[in-house]
């Protein structure tokens, strides 16, 4: 493992919560792309069955967690709050954000065919999704949080069942394009 990757690991251990690529790059005085590459390296090094510490990578942020395979033994000693049940609309909204993220509220609402403002607010407050704002755009983009990934016991959204086919589904892309071109 390179020194940068090792430093990132140390920083993540200390922070005990998700740290953005941007912030890591700032602390280490490197480019964000270099930070991404080092995280990639850390992922290869850590996310193996023989490592107790695993790396969870979300959109633009990363954190450390325990190896999901050891969940049973770990849960006997930690009091981490268990996530409460999701309602069906919350689950659907979360699913769309997980598979299609970064995604706008408009797109989520188009797929579900119904207003999702309250649900999205609720998911945000519970820390299951995160919001990203962009300059010159009123609309925000939503992705699932690293907390959510940890909860699912996966290391990135790419490990979701059928991720590739739903994320890049040609039919869905076509539909969203057609739907939103009409409004422009």
């Amino acid at each position, binding site marked *: 493992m390179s020194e940068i990757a090792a430093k990132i690991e140390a920083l993540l*251990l200390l922070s*005990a*919560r998700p740290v953005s690529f941007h912030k890591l790059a700032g602390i280490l005085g490197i480019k964000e792309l270099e930070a991404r590459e080092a995280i990639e390296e850390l992922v290869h090094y850590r996310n193996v069955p023989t490592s107790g510490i*695993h790396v*969870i990578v979300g959109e633009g942020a990363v*954190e*450390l*967690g*325990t*190896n*999901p*395979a050891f*969940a*049973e033994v*770990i*849960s006997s000693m*930690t009091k*981490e709050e268990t*996530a409460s049940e*999701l*309602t*069906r*609309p919350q*689950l*659907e909204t*979360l*699913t*769309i954000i*997980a*598979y299609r993220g970064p995604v706008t509220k408009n797109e989520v609402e*188009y*797929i*579900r*065919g*119904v*207003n999702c*403002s*309250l649900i999205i607010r609720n998911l945000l407050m519970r820390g299951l999704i995160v919001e990203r*704002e962009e*300059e*010159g*755009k*009123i609309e925000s983009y939503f992705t699932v949080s690293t907390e959510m*990934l*940890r*909860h*699912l*016991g*996966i290391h990135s959204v790419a490990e*979701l*069942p*059928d991720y590739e086919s*739903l994320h890049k*589904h040609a*039919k*869905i892309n076509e*539909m969203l394009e*057609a*739907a939103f*071109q009409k409004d422009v």
Partner: protein
Amino acid sequence: MAFTVEQSAFSGPLGLLLELLEQKKLEITEVALASITEAYLDYLNSHEIPSDELADFLLIASRLIYLKSRALLPYLEAEAEEDAVSLEEQLRVYRLFADAADRLAAVYSGPLHSFRQPFSRIVKSTQEVQFSASQNVNTNSIHEAFTWILKRLQPFFALREVSMERVKSVEERLREMTSAIASRAKMGFRDVMAGAKSRAEVVVSFMALLELMRRRIVKASQTGDNDIEIVRL
């Protein structure tokens, strides 16, 4: 009521459609959708729909009724304006995610979970609760935050300008038409349109005409050659 749907069994109008199709063991096709229109409307009548979702439920209802009317009057099809995405297509895509949600739910409540280090080492202050601004709040950071908000609002400001212009041009058009009609007793809408550079301008002129009629300054009637004759009152 012909059927019952558990509140938890579907979510939103598309979920309701899927549920209704499933109950009748129908595939997602236009014909099938048209055939469940009544069941869908019955459901809306017999259930309390949350007010923030009502518009969306009604939108789907209108699309169902449209499908049904098209099934009944197929010869009208050519004139109908099609949606960019058919309800059938939209429902298929929705089903992909509804199915994915079921799989995700299984993982969500499953045994695998990664834990993070708790914050326990951070010593909590026992001081009395009082307001204290966090250290990163200073004149610079507030200025930066506000600049950022302004940057994100740029498209909104652009939007405002356009709509202001349009309002102004209706006013202008109104004045122009008032002075035009003042100098002659009558004119045709075609003359008014002659100088229009865009479709929007024609619409604006028409709105100005309606306003003049409302204020009883002019009277308008359709002439044989498809023009509108505008007469001063």
